[in-house]
Protein backbone atom coordinates (compact mmCIF):
# COMPACT_ATOMS: atom_id res chain seq x y z
CA UNK A 1 0.00 0.00 0.00
CA UNK A 2 1.19 3.52 -0.71
CA UNK A 3 0.02 6.13 1.80
CA UNK A 4 0.57 9.89 1.67
CA UNK A 5 -0.11 11.90 4.85
CA UNK A 6 -0.62 15.63 4.45
CA UNK A 7 1.04 17.48 7.30
CA UNK A 8 0.90 21.22 7.72
CA UNK A 9 3.45 23.39 9.49
CA UNK A 10 1.55 25.95 11.55
CA UNK A 11 2.30 28.82 13.93
CA UNK A 12 2.24 27.59 17.52
CA UNK A 13 -1.23 28.17 18.95
CA UNK A 14 0.22 28.98 22.35
CA UNK A 15 2.48 31.70 20.88
CA UNK A 16 1.29 35.15 19.85
CA UNK A 17 -0.07 34.35 16.41
CA UNK A 18 -0.40 37.35 14.12
CA UNK A 19 -0.63 38.65 10.57
CA UNK A 20 1.89 40.29 8.25
CA UNK A 21 1.23 43.76 6.86
CA UNK A 22 -0.19 42.16 3.69
CA UNK A 23 -2.75 40.33 5.87
CA UNK A 24 -1.17 36.91 5.36
CA UNK A 25 -0.42 34.71 8.37
CA UNK A 26 3.00 35.41 9.85
CA UNK A 27 4.64 32.01 9.26
CA UNK A 28 8.21 33.10 9.85
CA UNK A 29 8.28 35.35 12.90
CA UNK A 30 6.21 33.03 15.08
CA UNK A 31 7.48 29.62 16.20
CA UNK A 32 5.99 26.85 14.14
CA UNK A 33 5.38 23.14 14.46
CA UNK A 34 3.63 20.16 12.92
CA UNK A 35 -0.07 20.91 13.34
CA UNK A 36 -1.21 18.88 16.34
CA UNK A 37 -4.26 17.71 14.45
CA UNK A 38 -2.06 16.27 11.69
CA UNK A 39 -0.21 14.15 14.26
CA UNK A 40 -3.39 12.10 14.45
CA UNK A 41 -3.23 11.62 10.68
CA UNK A 42 0.38 10.42 10.89
CA UNK A 43 -0.58 8.09 13.74
CA UNK A 44 -3.43 6.54 11.73
CA UNK A 45 -1.17 6.11 8.69
CA UNK A 46 1.37 4.29 10.84
CA UNK A 47 -1.31 2.11 12.41
CA UNK A 48 -2.74 1.19 9.02
CA UNK A 49 0.77 0.26 7.92
CA UNK A 50 1.43 -1.78 11.05
CA UNK A 51 -1.88 -3.62 10.81
CA UNK A 52 -1.60 -4.33 7.08
CA UNK A 53 -0.81 -7.79 5.74
CA UNK A 54 2.75 -6.85 4.87
CA UNK A 55 3.94 -3.72 6.64
CA UNK A 56 7.31 -3.78 4.88
CA UNK A 57 5.53 -3.32 1.56
CA UNK A 58 3.54 -0.35 2.84
CA UNK A 59 5.08 3.07 2.44
CA UNK A 60 4.05 6.16 4.40
CA UNK A 61 5.15 9.48 2.89
CA UNK A 62 4.69 12.74 4.80
CA UNK A 63 3.88 15.67 2.49
CA UNK A 64 3.92 19.33 3.41
CA UNK A 65 3.43 22.53 1.43
CA UNK A 66 5.02 25.48 3.16
CA UNK A 67 8.04 27.74 3.61
CA UNK A 68 11.54 26.28 4.04
CA UNK A 69 11.28 26.00 7.78
CA UNK A 70 8.16 23.87 7.37
CA UNK A 71 10.59 21.00 6.83
CA UNK A 72 10.40 20.64 10.64
CA UNK A 73 6.87 19.29 10.29
CA UNK A 74 8.03 16.67 7.79
CA UNK A 75 10.94 15.75 10.07
CA UNK A 76 8.63 15.25 13.02
CA UNK A 77 6.50 12.89 10.92
CA UNK A 78 9.64 10.95 9.94
CA UNK A 79 10.65 10.76 13.60
CA UNK A 80 7.23 9.37 14.46
CA UNK A 81 7.76 6.66 11.88
CA UNK A 82 6.88 7.83 8.36
CA UNK A 83 9.20 6.33 5.73
CA UNK A 84 9.78 9.26 3.43
CA UNK A 85 9.21 12.98 3.41
CA UNK A 86 8.42 15.63 0.81
CA UNK A 87 8.38 19.38 1.30
CA UNK A 88 6.95 21.47 -1.50
CA UNK A 89 8.41 24.92 -1.08
CA UNK A 90 8.52 27.82 -3.48
CA UNK A 91 8.42 31.57 -2.93
CA UNK A 92 5.54 31.79 -5.39
CA UNK A 93 3.33 29.69 -3.11
CA UNK A 94 3.37 32.19 -0.24
CA UNK A 95 -0.07 33.57 0.56
CA UNK A 96 -1.92 30.87 -1.37
CA UNK A 97 -5.59 30.31 -0.58
CA UNK A 98 -7.30 26.92 -0.10
CA UNK A 99 -7.79 26.41 -3.81
CA UNK A 100 -4.13 26.94 -4.68
CA UNK A 101 -2.92 24.94 -1.68
CA UNK A 102 -5.10 22.01 -2.64
CA UNK A 103 -3.87 22.28 -6.23
CA UNK A 104 -0.22 22.10 -5.18
CA UNK A 105 -0.92 19.23 -2.77
CA UNK A 106 -2.83 17.36 -5.48
CA UNK A 107 0.00 17.77 -8.01
CA UNK A 108 2.52 16.60 -5.42
CA UNK A 109 0.39 13.55 -4.58
CA UNK A 110 0.18 12.70 -8.29
CA UNK A 111 3.94 12.99 -8.60
CA UNK A 112 4.46 10.89 -5.46
CA UNK A 113 2.32 8.23 -7.13
CA UNK A 114 4.13 8.19 -10.47
CA UNK A 115 6.01 4.98 -9.79
CA UNK A 116 3.52 3.38 -7.50
CA UNK A 117 -0.05 4.62 -7.35
CA UNK A 118 -1.15 6.26 -4.11
CA UNK A 119 -3.88 4.24 -2.39
CA UNK A 120 -4.65 6.47 0.53
CA UNK A 121 -4.27 10.18 1.21
CA UNK A 122 -4.68 10.92 4.92
CA UNK A 123 -5.30 14.42 6.29
CA UNK A 124 -6.02 15.91 9.66
CA UNK A 125 -9.57 17.17 10.34
CA UNK A 126 -8.44 20.80 10.13
CA UNK A 127 -5.29 22.85 10.19
CA UNK A 128 -4.89 24.62 13.53
CA UNK A 129 -4.26 27.98 11.85
CA UNK A 130 -6.73 28.25 8.97
CA UNK A 131 -9.12 25.70 10.48
CA UNK A 132 -11.14 25.49 7.29
CA UNK A 133 -11.59 21.71 7.21
CA UNK A 134 -11.93 22.03 3.45
CA UNK A 135 -8.58 20.95 2.02
CA UNK A 136 -9.35 17.20 2.21
CA UNK A 137 -12.60 17.63 0.25
CA UNK A 138 -10.85 19.91 -2.24
CA UNK A 139 -8.05 17.38 -2.67
CA UNK A 140 -10.62 14.69 -3.35
CA UNK A 141 -12.18 16.94 -5.97
CA UNK A 142 -8.83 17.83 -7.55
CA UNK A 143 -7.77 14.17 -7.66
CA UNK A 144 -11.24 12.94 -8.62
CA UNK A 145 -11.29 10.60 -5.63
CA UNK A 146 -13.92 9.72 -3.05
CA UNK A 147 -13.56 11.25 0.38
CA UNK A 148 -14.18 9.61 3.72
CA UNK A 149 -13.78 12.36 6.25
CA UNK A 150 -13.89 13.32 9.94
CA UNK A 151 -13.28 9.76 11.03
CA UNK A 152 -13.19 9.09 14.76
CA UNK A 153 -12.52 5.38 14.23
CA UNK A 154 -10.72 4.01 11.17
CA UNK A 155 -10.70 0.43 9.91
CA UNK A 156 -9.15 -0.86 6.72
CA UNK A 157 -9.31 -4.29 5.18
CA UNK A 158 -7.60 -4.82 1.86
CA UNK A 159 -8.72 -1.88 -0.23
CA UNK A 160 -11.82 -1.22 1.89
CA UNK A 161 -11.99 1.68 4.31
CA UNK A 162 -14.67 1.98 6.98
CA UNK A 163 -14.90 4.81 9.43
CA UNK A 164 -17.16 6.02 12.17
CA UNK A 165 -18.01 9.67 12.37
CA UNK A 166 -19.97 11.80 14.81
CA UNK A 167 -22.14 14.21 12.90
CA UNK A 168 -24.35 16.98 14.23
CA UNK A 169 -27.48 14.97 13.78
CA UNK A 170 -26.31 11.37 13.59
CA UNK A 171 -23.43 8.98 14.14
CA UNK A 172 -22.58 7.35 10.85
CA UNK A 173 -20.50 4.54 9.44
CA UNK A 174 -19.01 5.47 6.10
CA UNK A 175 -17.35 3.17 3.64
CA UNK A 176 -15.27 3.58 0.51
CA UNK A 177 -12.85 1.74 -1.74
CA UNK A 178 -9.24 2.85 -2.17
CA UNK A 179 -7.88 5.01 -3.63
CA UNK A 180 -9.52 7.71 -1.53
CA UNK A 181 -8.93 10.71 0.70
CA UNK A 182 -9.39 10.11 4.41
CA UNK A 183 -9.44 12.71 7.17
CA UNK A 184 -9.25 11.84 10.86
CA UNK A 185 -10.23 13.67 14.05
CA UNK A 186 -8.51 13.94 17.42
CA UNK A 187 -10.89 11.23 18.63
CA UNK A 188 -8.90 8.56 16.77
CA UNK A 189 -6.50 8.15 19.69
CA UNK A 190 -3.31 9.73 20.97
CA UNK A 191 -0.47 10.14 18.53
CA UNK A 192 2.82 8.50 19.48
CA UNK A 193 5.86 10.49 20.58
CA UNK A 194 9.04 10.05 18.55
CA UNK A 195 11.33 7.61 20.36
CA UNK A 196 15.07 8.18 20.57
CA UNK A 197 15.48 5.41 18.01
CA UNK A 198 12.91 7.08 15.80
CA UNK A 199 14.71 10.40 15.99
CA UNK A 200 18.01 8.80 15.01
CA UNK A 201 16.43 6.73 12.21
CA UNK A 202 14.71 9.81 10.78
CA UNK A 203 18.06 11.38 9.93
CA UNK A 204 18.68 8.69 7.33
CA UNK A 205 15.24 8.70 5.75
CA UNK A 206 14.71 10.16 2.26
CA UNK A 207 13.53 13.75 2.39
CA UNK A 208 12.99 15.63 -0.84
CA UNK A 209 12.19 19.26 -1.54
CA UNK A 210 10.14 20.00 -4.64
CA UNK A 211 9.53 23.34 -6.30
CA UNK A 212 6.58 24.34 -8.44
CA UNK A 213 8.49 23.53 -11.62
CA UNK A 214 9.10 20.00 -10.34
CA UNK A 215 5.33 19.67 -10.18
CA UNK A 216 4.62 21.39 -13.47
CA UNK A 217 2.54 24.03 -11.72
CA UNK A 218 2.59 27.52 -13.21
CA UNK A 219 3.74 30.06 -10.61
CA UNK A 220 1.00 32.35 -11.95
CA UNK A 221 -1.66 29.95 -10.68
CA UNK A 222 -0.74 30.18 -7.00
CA UNK A 223 0.23 32.67 -4.34
CA UNK A 224 -1.24 35.78 -2.81
CA UNK A 225 -1.61 37.93 -5.93
CA UNK A 226 -3.92 35.46 -7.69
CA UNK A 227 -5.76 34.18 -4.62
CA UNK A 228 -9.47 33.80 -5.28
CA UNK A 229 -10.20 35.18 -1.85
CA UNK A 230 -8.62 38.20 -0.37
CA UNK A 231 -8.28 39.21 3.24
CA UNK A 232 -8.88 42.94 3.35
CA UNK A 233 -8.44 43.65 7.00
CA UNK A 234 -7.32 41.95 10.20
CA UNK A 235 -8.05 43.32 13.66
CA UNK A 236 -6.88 42.05 17.00
CA UNK A 237 -9.75 41.44 19.34
CA UNK A 238 -9.66 44.01 22.11
CA UNK A 239 -8.74 42.36 25.41
CA UNK A 240 -11.76 41.72 27.58
CA UNK A 241 -11.96 44.19 30.39
CA UNK A 242 -11.21 42.62 33.73
CA UNK A 243 -14.30 41.17 35.34
CA UNK A 244 -15.34 40.92 38.93
CA UNK A 245 -14.03 37.90 40.80
CA UNK A 246 -15.38 36.81 44.16
CA UNK A 247 -14.22 34.14 46.56
CA UNK A 248 -16.83 31.71 47.82
CA UNK A 249 -17.05 31.74 51.58
CA UNK A 250 -19.87 29.97 53.38
CA UNK A 251 -22.13 30.09 50.37
CA UNK A 252 -21.52 33.73 49.46
CA UNK A 253 -20.36 32.66 45.98
CA UNK A 254 -23.73 31.23 44.98
CA UNK A 255 -25.55 34.35 46.12
CA UNK A 256 -23.14 36.64 44.31
CA UNK A 257 -23.47 34.52 41.17
CA UNK A 258 -27.26 34.63 41.31
CA UNK A 259 -27.20 38.39 41.87
CA UNK A 260 -24.91 38.87 38.90
CA UNK A 261 -27.09 36.76 36.59
CA UNK A 262 -30.21 38.59 37.77
CA UNK A 263 -28.58 42.00 37.23
CA UNK A 264 -27.85 40.97 33.64
CA UNK A 265 -31.43 39.72 33.23
CA UNK A 266 -30.45 36.12 32.62
CA UNK A 267 -32.95 35.04 35.28
Amino acid sequence: MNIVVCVKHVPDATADRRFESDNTVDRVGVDGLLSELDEYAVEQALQIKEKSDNPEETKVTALCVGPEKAVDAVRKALQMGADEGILVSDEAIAGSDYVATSLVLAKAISKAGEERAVDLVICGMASTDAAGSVVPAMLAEQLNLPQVTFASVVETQGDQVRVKRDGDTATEVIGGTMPLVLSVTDQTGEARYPSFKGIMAAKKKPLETWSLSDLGVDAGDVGLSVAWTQVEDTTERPPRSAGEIVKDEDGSGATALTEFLASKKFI
Partner: protein
Amino acid sequence: MSEVLVLIDHVDGAVRKPTYELLAIAKRLGEPSAVFIGGADQASGAAEAVKKYGAEKVYTVDDTEIKGYLVAPKAEVLQQLAEKTSPAAILISSSFEGKEIAGRLAIKLKSGIITDAVDVQSSEGGPVTTQSVFAGNFTVQAKVTKGTPIITVKPNAAAPEEGDGAGAVEEFAATISDAAKSAKIVASQPRQASGRPELTEAAIVVAGGRGTGGNFEPIEGFADALGAAVGASRAAVDSGWTPHTFQIGQTGKTVSPQLYVANGISGAIQHRAGMQTSKTIVAVNKDDEAPIFELVDFGVVGDLHTVLPAATEQINKRKG
Protein backbone atom coordinates in the same frame (compact mmCIF):
# COMPACT_ATOMS: atom_id res chain seq x y z
CA MET B 1 -31.44 41.50 -8.91
CA SER B 2 -29.36 38.35 -8.99
CA GLU B 3 -30.35 35.22 -7.18
CA VAL B 4 -28.46 34.08 -4.10
CA LEU B 5 -28.49 30.32 -3.62
CA VAL B 6 -29.03 29.06 -0.07
CA LEU B 7 -28.59 25.35 0.55
CA ILE B 8 -31.29 24.19 2.96
CA ASP B 9 -29.86 22.42 5.99
CA HIS B 10 -32.45 19.89 7.11
CA VAL B 11 -33.01 16.56 8.82
CA ASP B 12 -35.58 14.45 6.94
CA GLY B 13 -37.29 17.56 5.67
CA ALA B 14 -37.28 19.44 8.97
CA VAL B 15 -35.47 22.71 8.17
CA ARG B 16 -32.79 23.66 10.69
CA LYS B 17 -32.55 27.16 12.11
CA PRO B 18 -29.24 28.13 10.44
CA THR B 19 -31.07 27.98 7.09
CA TYR B 20 -33.28 30.90 8.15
CA GLU B 21 -30.19 32.83 9.15
CA LEU B 22 -28.71 32.21 5.69
CA LEU B 23 -31.92 33.50 4.09
CA ALA B 24 -31.66 36.71 6.11
CA ILE B 25 -28.12 37.17 4.82
CA ALA B 26 -29.15 36.28 1.27
CA LYS B 27 -31.66 39.16 1.31
CA ARG B 28 -28.78 41.58 1.83
CA LEU B 29 -27.02 40.25 -1.24
CA GLY B 30 -29.82 39.65 -3.73
CA GLU B 31 -32.90 37.50 -4.18
CA PRO B 32 -32.92 34.47 -1.91
CA SER B 33 -33.40 31.15 -3.72
CA ALA B 34 -33.44 28.15 -1.43
CA VAL B 35 -32.20 24.77 -2.63
CA PHE B 36 -33.78 21.66 -1.15
CA ILE B 37 -32.01 18.36 -1.73
CA GLY B 38 -34.08 15.65 -0.12
CA GLY B 39 -37.06 13.33 -0.36
CA ALA B 40 -39.74 14.34 -2.89
CA ASP B 41 -42.41 13.88 -0.22
CA GLN B 42 -40.62 16.33 2.09
CA ALA B 43 -40.07 19.07 -0.49
CA SER B 44 -43.35 20.94 -0.13
CA GLY B 45 -43.08 21.11 3.65
CA ALA B 46 -39.55 22.46 3.45
CA ALA B 47 -40.56 24.93 0.72
CA GLU B 48 -43.41 26.22 2.91
CA ALA B 49 -40.96 26.69 5.78
CA VAL B 50 -38.37 28.68 3.83
CA LYS B 51 -41.02 30.76 2.09
CA LYS B 52 -41.95 32.17 5.50
CA TYR B 53 -38.39 33.42 5.86
CA GLY B 54 -38.24 35.16 2.54
CA ALA B 55 -37.31 32.56 -0.08
CA GLU B 56 -38.44 33.90 -3.46
CA LYS B 57 -37.71 30.64 -5.23
CA VAL B 58 -37.25 27.10 -4.00
CA TYR B 59 -35.40 24.62 -6.17
CA THR B 60 -36.26 21.08 -5.14
CA VAL B 61 -33.99 18.21 -6.03
CA ASP B 62 -35.22 14.68 -5.43
CA ASP B 63 -32.44 12.81 -3.66
CA THR B 64 -33.66 9.24 -4.19
CA GLU B 65 -30.70 8.51 -6.42
CA ILE B 66 -28.06 10.15 -4.23
CA LYS B 67 -29.28 9.53 -0.71
CA GLY B 68 -26.72 7.62 1.28
CA TYR B 69 -23.72 9.05 -0.52
CA LEU B 70 -21.38 11.62 0.87
CA VAL B 71 -21.11 15.24 -0.20
CA ALA B 72 -19.91 14.85 -3.80
CA PRO B 73 -23.39 14.51 -5.40
CA LYS B 74 -24.65 17.59 -3.56
CA ALA B 75 -21.71 19.56 -4.90
CA GLU B 76 -22.67 18.45 -8.40
CA VAL B 77 -26.27 19.56 -7.88
CA LEU B 78 -25.15 23.01 -6.74
CA GLN B 79 -22.67 23.26 -9.60
CA GLN B 80 -25.44 22.64 -12.15
CA LEU B 81 -27.82 25.04 -10.43
CA ALA B 82 -25.12 27.70 -10.29
CA GLU B 83 -24.42 27.28 -14.00
CA LYS B 84 -28.11 27.69 -14.72
CA THR B 85 -28.77 30.67 -12.44
CA SER B 86 -25.42 32.59 -12.30
CA PRO B 87 -26.03 33.51 -8.65
CA ALA B 88 -24.46 36.49 -6.88
CA ALA B 89 -23.33 34.14 -4.10
CA ILE B 90 -23.87 30.66 -2.71
CA LEU B 91 -24.49 30.36 1.04
CA ILE B 92 -24.10 27.10 2.93
CA SER B 93 -24.14 26.44 6.67
CA SER B 94 -20.77 25.87 8.27
CA SER B 95 -21.29 22.28 9.33
CA PHE B 96 -18.68 19.66 8.46
CA GLU B 97 -20.87 18.56 5.58
CA GLY B 98 -21.57 22.11 4.47
CA LYS B 99 -17.91 23.02 4.37
CA GLU B 100 -17.04 19.96 2.34
CA ILE B 101 -19.78 20.59 -0.19
CA ALA B 102 -18.45 24.15 -0.45
CA GLY B 103 -14.88 22.92 -0.89
CA ARG B 104 -15.73 20.61 -3.77
CA LEU B 105 -18.00 23.21 -5.32
CA ALA B 106 -15.26 25.83 -5.26
CA ILE B 107 -13.00 23.62 -7.37
CA LYS B 108 -15.83 22.76 -9.78
CA LEU B 109 -16.92 26.37 -10.28
CA LYS B 110 -13.38 27.77 -10.15
CA SER B 111 -14.59 30.13 -7.47
CA GLY B 112 -13.16 31.50 -4.27
CA ILE B 113 -14.41 30.14 -0.97
CA ILE B 114 -14.70 31.63 2.51
CA THR B 115 -15.46 29.37 5.48
CA ASP B 116 -16.93 30.04 8.92
CA ALA B 117 -18.18 33.57 8.34
CA VAL B 118 -19.72 35.13 11.46
CA ASP B 119 -21.13 38.01 9.42
CA VAL B 120 -21.72 38.80 5.75
CA GLN B 121 -22.55 42.26 4.40
CA SER B 122 -22.98 43.48 0.87
CA SER B 123 -20.63 45.96 -0.74
CA GLU B 124 -20.12 47.26 -4.24
CA GLY B 125 -17.45 44.68 -4.90
CA GLY B 126 -19.60 41.80 -3.65
CA PRO B 127 -20.13 40.22 -0.25
CA VAL B 128 -17.71 41.10 2.54
CA THR B 129 -17.36 38.48 5.25
CA THR B 130 -16.19 38.63 8.85
CA GLN B 131 -14.39 35.65 10.36
CA SER B 132 -13.07 35.06 13.83
CA VAL B 133 -9.61 33.45 13.71
CA PHE B 134 -6.69 32.34 15.88
CA ALA B 135 -8.92 31.07 18.66
CA GLY B 136 -11.02 34.21 18.47
CA ASN B 137 -8.10 36.57 19.02
CA PHE B 138 -8.47 38.23 15.61
CA THR B 139 -11.31 39.29 13.37
CA VAL B 140 -10.72 39.19 9.65
CA GLN B 141 -12.59 40.82 6.80
CA ALA B 142 -12.42 39.04 3.46
CA LYS B 143 -13.85 38.99 -0.02
CA VAL B 144 -14.01 36.53 -2.88
CA THR B 145 -12.26 37.95 -5.92
CA LYS B 146 -12.86 35.21 -8.46
CA GLY B 147 -15.97 33.38 -9.62
CA THR B 148 -19.14 33.03 -7.58
CA PRO B 149 -18.51 33.76 -3.90
CA ILE B 150 -19.06 30.51 -1.98
CA ILE B 151 -19.49 31.29 1.70
CA THR B 152 -20.09 28.96 4.61
CA VAL B 153 -21.72 30.72 7.53
CA LYS B 154 -21.61 29.85 11.23
CA PRO B 155 -24.80 29.49 13.26
CA ASN B 156 -26.02 32.77 14.85
CA ALA B 157 -24.34 34.96 12.21
CA ALA B 158 -27.67 36.71 11.59
CA ALA B 159 -31.12 36.83 13.11
CA PRO B 160 -33.77 34.96 11.10
CA GLU B 161 -36.21 37.40 9.49
CA GLU B 162 -39.80 36.35 9.07
CA GLY B 163 -41.59 37.70 6.03
CA ASP B 164 -43.18 35.95 3.09
CA GLY B 165 -41.22 35.42 -0.08
CA ALA B 166 -42.87 34.27 -3.30
CA GLY B 167 -41.65 30.76 -2.57
CA ALA B 168 -42.07 29.64 -6.19
CA VAL B 169 -41.21 25.96 -6.31
CA GLU B 170 -39.25 24.65 -9.26
CA GLU B 171 -38.18 21.05 -9.58
CA PHE B 172 -34.61 20.69 -10.70
CA ALA B 173 -33.27 17.48 -12.20
CA ALA B 174 -29.53 17.22 -11.77
CA THR B 175 -27.25 14.74 -13.50
CA ILE B 176 -25.06 12.94 -11.03
CA SER B 177 -21.87 11.22 -12.14
CA ASP B 178 -21.02 7.71 -11.00
CA ALA B 179 -17.74 8.99 -9.59
CA ALA B 180 -19.66 11.13 -7.12
CA LYS B 181 -21.32 8.02 -5.75
CA SER B 182 -18.27 6.32 -4.38
CA ALA B 183 -18.22 7.01 -0.66
CA LYS B 184 -21.25 5.54 1.01
CA ILE B 185 -23.04 5.92 4.32
CA VAL B 186 -23.26 2.30 5.47
CA ALA B 187 -25.15 2.90 8.68
CA SER B 188 -26.59 5.89 10.48
CA GLN B 189 -27.85 6.32 13.98
CA PRO B 190 -29.78 9.51 14.65
CA ARG B 191 -28.70 11.44 17.69
CA GLN B 192 -31.06 11.31 20.62
CA ALA B 193 -32.62 14.61 21.53
CA SER B 194 -31.51 15.83 24.95
CA GLY B 195 -34.60 17.95 25.49
CA ARG B 196 -32.28 20.95 26.00
CA PRO B 197 -31.58 23.67 23.45
CA GLU B 198 -29.17 22.88 20.59
CA LEU B 199 -25.64 23.78 21.70
CA THR B 200 -24.78 26.07 18.81
CA GLU B 201 -28.15 27.81 18.86
CA ALA B 202 -28.63 28.31 22.59
CA ALA B 203 -28.69 31.77 24.18
CA ILE B 204 -27.08 30.35 27.32
CA VAL B 205 -24.51 27.56 27.54
CA VAL B 206 -23.42 25.95 30.80
CA ALA B 207 -20.29 23.83 30.43
CA GLY B 208 -18.41 21.42 32.66
CA GLY B 209 -14.81 20.23 32.60
CA ARG B 210 -12.44 17.95 34.43
CA GLY B 211 -13.33 19.77 37.65
CA THR B 212 -16.73 18.06 37.66
CA GLY B 213 -14.92 14.85 38.51
CA GLY B 214 -17.40 13.10 36.26
CA ASN B 215 -20.50 14.30 38.07
CA PHE B 216 -22.45 16.47 35.64
CA GLU B 217 -25.56 16.75 37.81
CA PRO B 218 -24.66 20.21 39.17
CA ILE B 219 -24.01 21.37 35.59
CA GLU B 220 -27.28 19.97 34.26
CA GLY B 221 -29.32 21.28 37.18
CA PHE B 222 -27.88 24.77 36.76
CA ALA B 223 -28.38 24.62 32.98
CA ASP B 224 -32.02 23.64 33.36
CA ALA B 225 -32.67 26.45 35.85
CA LEU B 226 -31.42 28.89 33.19
CA GLY B 227 -32.96 27.08 30.21
CA ALA B 228 -29.47 26.53 28.87
CA ALA B 229 -27.66 24.01 26.69
CA VAL B 230 -25.00 21.80 28.28
CA GLY B 231 -21.44 21.78 26.95
CA ALA B 232 -18.13 20.26 27.98
CA SER B 233 -14.37 20.57 27.69
CA ARG B 234 -12.38 17.94 25.84
CA ALA B 235 -11.07 16.60 29.13
CA ALA B 236 -14.65 15.77 30.15
CA VAL B 237 -15.35 14.18 26.78
CA ASP B 238 -12.11 12.19 26.73
CA SER B 239 -12.94 10.83 30.18
CA GLY B 240 -16.18 9.52 28.75
CA TRP B 241 -18.35 11.71 30.98
CA THR B 242 -20.24 13.34 28.11
CA PRO B 243 -20.69 12.58 24.40
CA HIS B 244 -18.28 14.15 21.94
CA THR B 245 -21.07 16.24 20.43
CA PHE B 246 -21.07 18.33 23.61
CA GLN B 247 -17.43 19.33 23.21
CA ILE B 248 -16.71 23.02 22.87
CA GLY B 249 -13.46 24.24 21.37
CA GLN B 250 -11.10 23.89 18.48
CA THR B 251 -12.09 20.32 17.67
CA GLY B 252 -15.62 20.60 18.97
CA LYS B 253 -18.34 23.18 18.53
CA THR B 254 -17.93 26.93 18.45
CA VAL B 255 -20.54 28.70 20.51
CA SER B 256 -21.20 32.38 20.82
CA PRO B 257 -24.12 32.67 23.25
CA GLN B 258 -25.33 35.64 25.28
CA LEU B 259 -24.02 33.88 28.38
CA TYR B 260 -21.36 31.20 28.79
CA VAL B 261 -20.75 29.60 32.18
CA ALA B 262 -17.54 27.54 32.47
CA ASN B 263 -17.39 25.24 35.48
CA GLY B 264 -14.28 23.30 36.44
CA ILE B 265 -12.68 24.30 33.14
CA SER B 266 -9.17 25.76 33.18
CA GLY B 267 -9.51 27.74 29.93
CA ALA B 268 -6.89 26.21 27.61
CA ILE B 269 -6.40 27.97 24.26
CA GLN B 270 -8.14 25.12 22.43
CA HIS B 271 -11.17 25.51 24.66
CA ARG B 272 -11.16 29.29 24.29
CA ALA B 273 -11.26 28.83 20.54
CA GLY B 274 -14.82 27.60 20.90
CA MET B 275 -16.25 30.12 23.36
CA GLN B 276 -14.17 33.28 23.42
CA THR B 277 -16.69 35.31 21.42
CA SER B 278 -19.52 34.69 23.92
CA LYS B 279 -21.11 37.98 25.01
CA THR B 280 -20.94 37.45 28.77
CA ILE B 281 -18.58 34.92 30.33
CA VAL B 282 -18.86 33.51 33.85
CA ALA B 283 -16.61 30.92 35.49
CA VAL B 284 -16.67 28.83 38.63
CA ASN B 285 -13.28 27.35 39.42
CA LYS B 286 -11.56 26.52 42.69
CA ASP B 287 -8.17 27.71 41.44
CA ASP B 288 -8.00 31.52 41.50
CA GLU B 289 -5.13 31.35 38.98
CA ALA B 290 -7.03 29.39 36.33
CA PRO B 291 -6.58 31.16 32.97
CA ILE B 292 -10.34 31.15 32.39
CA PHE B 293 -10.57 34.02 34.89
CA GLU B 294 -8.73 36.25 32.37
CA LEU B 295 -11.82 36.10 30.18
CA VAL B 296 -14.64 36.45 32.63
CA ASP B 297 -17.13 39.20 33.32
CA PHE B 298 -17.85 37.48 36.58
CA GLY B 299 -16.03 34.69 38.36
CA VAL B 300 -16.47 32.67 41.52
CA VAL B 301 -13.42 31.08 43.13
CA GLY B 302 -14.97 28.05 44.74
CA ASP B 303 -16.03 24.43 44.47
CA LEU B 304 -18.58 23.93 41.71
CA HIS B 305 -20.12 21.07 43.67
CA THR B 306 -21.32 23.50 46.34
CA VAL B 307 -21.66 26.77 44.39
CA LEU B 308 -23.79 25.45 41.52
CA PRO B 309 -26.42 23.51 43.51
CA ALA B 310 -26.87 26.48 45.86
CA ALA B 311 -27.15 28.93 42.96
CA THR B 312 -29.58 26.59 41.19
CA GLU B 313 -31.80 26.55 44.24
CA GLN B 314 -31.76 30.34 44.50
CA ILE B 315 -32.57 30.77 40.82
CA ASN B 316 -35.44 28.30 40.97
CA LYS B 317 -36.80 30.13 44.02
CA ARG B 318 -36.66 33.48 42.26
CA LYS B 319 -38.50 32.05 39.30
CA GLY B 320 -41.13 30.89 41.80
